[in-house]
């Protein structure tokens, strides 16, 4: 069998997927990236291999993707996370034509064609309370952590409105809501809804067509998924068994197989 590795060096997390020629995932591993991308790549690959005692020499090709893709000397090829994300999601959810990736630093909307090629994409305007980090700061401010968002937001009675576009001022709106003694759940839900609205805007801006797919860390927040489906009039499918976070790594590994094939073709030719 041929085996490829996809290493997604995200700004906060590094994810690895080992994939065989049939697209079957042999092993996955995720850890915080830290500041040394090269180490993060090496380390994660090593652990991913050890987990299934695969030896390094069995890996035929490595594709790096994500923010730190250039720092990962071990990879044979670097591809952007957008291309990888789209392709990975496409292989899990072939019918999906629009992918929303809601991560910590950025939210991305991608339109893809029937072979998983990116035909249009849009990233959140940085000057907007657009990404997961905003939610994280909010819950931390409320005295909870990221894992509580889903629960808190679902128990909201009367969500607050957060209108400010700047994260920092959005935070101060949140402070003001708390000062006005609004319930923690309502404030949290308000933040989720604000973020959902912006994410939905991104999706509209790539002239999205359903079926929709949702990947990235925020995919686990039910309120967000529901609201998105509600605003855009069609539900959002998520990748199988919580693999959403690995879409980039998986896509990279799959594209690595394609390069590998092309290379062998060239050699034999």
């Amino acid at each position, binding site marked *: 069998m041929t085996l490829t590795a996809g290493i997604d060096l995200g700004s906060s997390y590094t994810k690895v997927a080992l994939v065989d020629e049939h697209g079957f995932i042999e092993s996955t591993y995720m850890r915080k990236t830290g500041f040394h991308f090269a180490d993060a790549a090496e380390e994660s690959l090593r652990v991913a291999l050890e987990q299934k005692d695969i030896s390094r020499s069995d890996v035929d090709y490595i594709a790096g993707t994500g923010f730190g893709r250039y720092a990962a000397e071990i990879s044979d090829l670097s591809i952007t996370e957008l291309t990888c994300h789209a392709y990975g999601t496409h292989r899990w959810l072939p019918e999906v034509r629009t992918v929303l990736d809601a991560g910590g630093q950025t939210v991305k909307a991608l339109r893809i064609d029937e072979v998983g090629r990116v035909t249009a994409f849009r990233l959140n305007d940085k000057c907007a309370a657009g990404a997961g980090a905003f939610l994280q700061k909010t819950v931390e401010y409320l005295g909870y952590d990221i894992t509580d968002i889903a629960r808190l937001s679902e128990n909201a009675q009367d969500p607050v409105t957060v*209108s*400010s576009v700047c994260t920092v001022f959005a935070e101060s709106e949140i402070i003001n809501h708390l000062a006005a003694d609004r319930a923690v759940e309502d404030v949290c839900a308000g933040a989720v809804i604000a973020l959902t609205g912006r994410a939905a805007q991104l999706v509209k801006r790539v002239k999205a067509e359903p079926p929709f797919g949702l990947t990235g860390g925020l995919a686990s927040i039910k309120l967000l998924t529901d609201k998105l489906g509600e605003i855009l009039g069609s539900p959002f499918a998520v990748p199988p068994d919580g693999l959403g976070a690995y879409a980039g790594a998986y896509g990279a590994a799959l594209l690595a197989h394609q390069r590998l094939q092309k290379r062998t073709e060239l050699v034999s030719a």
Partner: protein
Amino acid sequence: METQKVAIRPALSQAGNTRTMSRALIQNYWDELTESDATAKPVANTFVMGSMAEVLNTFDIPMSFPEVAALQTAVKGKSMEYLLAAEDLGHSPDICGYVKVDIGLHATGRNHPLGKYPKPGLVVASNMCNTYIKWAEILERQYNCPVFVLDLPGWRGTGFEYDSSSETFKNDVKYVEGQIRDLITLCEEVSGKKFDIDKLREILGDVNRMSELYRSILAMNKNKPAPFNALTEGINYMGIANILRGRPEGVQFMETVLSELEERVANNVGAVSDEHFRLLLVGVACYTNFKEFAGMFERWSGVFVASEYMSFAGGGIDRGVVYDLSRPIESLAEQILITAQPSMSGIFYSHEWQARVAEDYDIDGIVYHGVKSCRTVSAGLPDAREWLLNHENVPGLFIQSDLVDSRLWAEAQMRNRIDAFFESLESRRIQAGV
């Protein structure tokens, strides 16, 4: 939270006339547009600065002002849905919000809260705001309607006064007069009517009269207490001055306003109860949160006795339009050029104008409100503020939000700056031993 002090205006026999009248006039304006749309009568999309109302009215071509429409959606709390509709079409968060609200209105069935928003049969855009021209091109693409760009060369020097005896001026007049004649030909085509110079003459007469009244209205606020709030009431006066420029109803309205204000002065009634601070507004207001915005000043008994907006956004009508009815077209060209200046070079050199107003109206401080939507008004404010403070010792507050984009409204920050400004004005009084 602390209780807000909001000024109460005592009842007067005249009181409310202006308000009811302006409401009615604005509704008429919308009814006219709604009807024109129903009967497919060609409507001119034109802009408040350099509207060429004189020519358009001569051909009875109804005028639709997108800025007025956009402003009203914000006051009605509807601007965001139109604005977002435009952004969904791909328009940037960083362009003028008025433009986006307009695009949104056109993209969502042209249903304005106050009436039907008509298709443009003709677009007239002057260069008094560069964005007008881009805006016109957007409409041109959507409706492929005729677009007329009136190019008004601004004053070239670095002063505020327009030298109308110069060679440059004569050359500009030739250029503008030629363009006006082109516009007249275009209007003949659009309206199917022949040009009637006597009707133009009549209209010019009405504008002369309206301008005279408008100036007296502004001057009323030299009284203490100031009879009207240039922020909250002034916006109505200016709105009517724009939509009814060159129409008799407009003249009547200004007469009513003036008499109401005269009565307020006679009864020593101020726009805010116990006027404490007299302010000049430079820039435009924030219409998405208009009440809160105005309230933040009123709770300190601060009244806007003057507003630069009432000058430049009135297309210079405050500078005294005096058309020579014996030579209408030539005079129109000359006067447009001269009165355009407050909205052109005037904005860029407005520190001189501000200094004069601060003097004439006995201003305590200037509020500079910059908006992301309007770089024409906002870009130079910090520099003007600095000049007024250092050369004229007139204190200024610099704040920013937007006309129609509530995402740029940050209440806590806004309030904090405004409260601090009033505290500093009070400090100055203590200093002066007042």
